[in-house]
């Protein structure tokens, strides 16, 4: 089974702190994604990566950056956390075409910024 793990299930940080959210997948997938999930808004794509050291902005990249130094690991960075970044963060991975199309999700990290 594909496994996508995220470093923390719950995280509490203070305004202005630098925050790292880590995601690791064990299926050698080329593509990895970071989403933010808020009630009533569904999932919104922050960044995605289709190869090591490659990244593309999603719909809401402002205030975030990412890093992908190894194929299995995709990090989301909040350079200076703000209260409006309190949210659930979901990581996903998927194989490149034509191997597959579906995304595999991690359990999520619920981040609270105070």
């Amino acid at each position, binding site marked *: 089974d594909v496994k*996508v793990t995220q470093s923390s299930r719950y995280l509490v940080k203070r305004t202005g702190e630098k925050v790292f959210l880590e995601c690791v997948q064990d299926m050698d997938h*080329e*593509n990895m*994604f970071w989403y933010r999930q808020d009630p*009533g*808004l*569904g*999932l*919104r*794509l922050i960044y*995605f990566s*289709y*190869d090591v050291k*490659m990244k*593309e902005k999603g719909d809401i990249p402002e205030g975030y950056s990412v890093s992908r130094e190894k194929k299995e690991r995709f990090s989301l960075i909040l350079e200076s956390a703000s209260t409006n970044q309190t949210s659930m963060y*979901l990581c*996903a991975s*998927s*194989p*490149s*075409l034509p191997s597959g*199309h*579906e*995304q595999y*999700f*991690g*359990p*999520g990290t619920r981040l609270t910024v105070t």
Partner: protein
Amino acid sequence: AQSVTQPDIHITVSEGASLELRCNYSYGATPYLFWYVQSPGQGLQLLLKYFSGDTLVQGIKGFEAEFKRSQSSFNLRKPSVHWSDAAEYFCAVGARGGGSYIPTFGRGTSLIVHP
């Protein structure tokens, strides 16, 4: 740009009743459509997907969905709901990007199951 509308924020059904969750999409080409389920405290799990071919798609856990191009819809159905089906359901439409399909998700429908 593609978009997805799930018009129902909440749906309440009795256990054993049939279920239909609505999904309408907007996309300029042939859509790639997905339904995911999110149980409380969990990530999302794929229920089923449509890319081409038969417009009635079977998925896991007894779910099915029907693609109707004329109505731009991809509604999810189940003939008899179980209490364990209570969850959040997301419809998504995919667009080609990089080496994968980049889905746009709807806002979700929360399913409540009464005993």
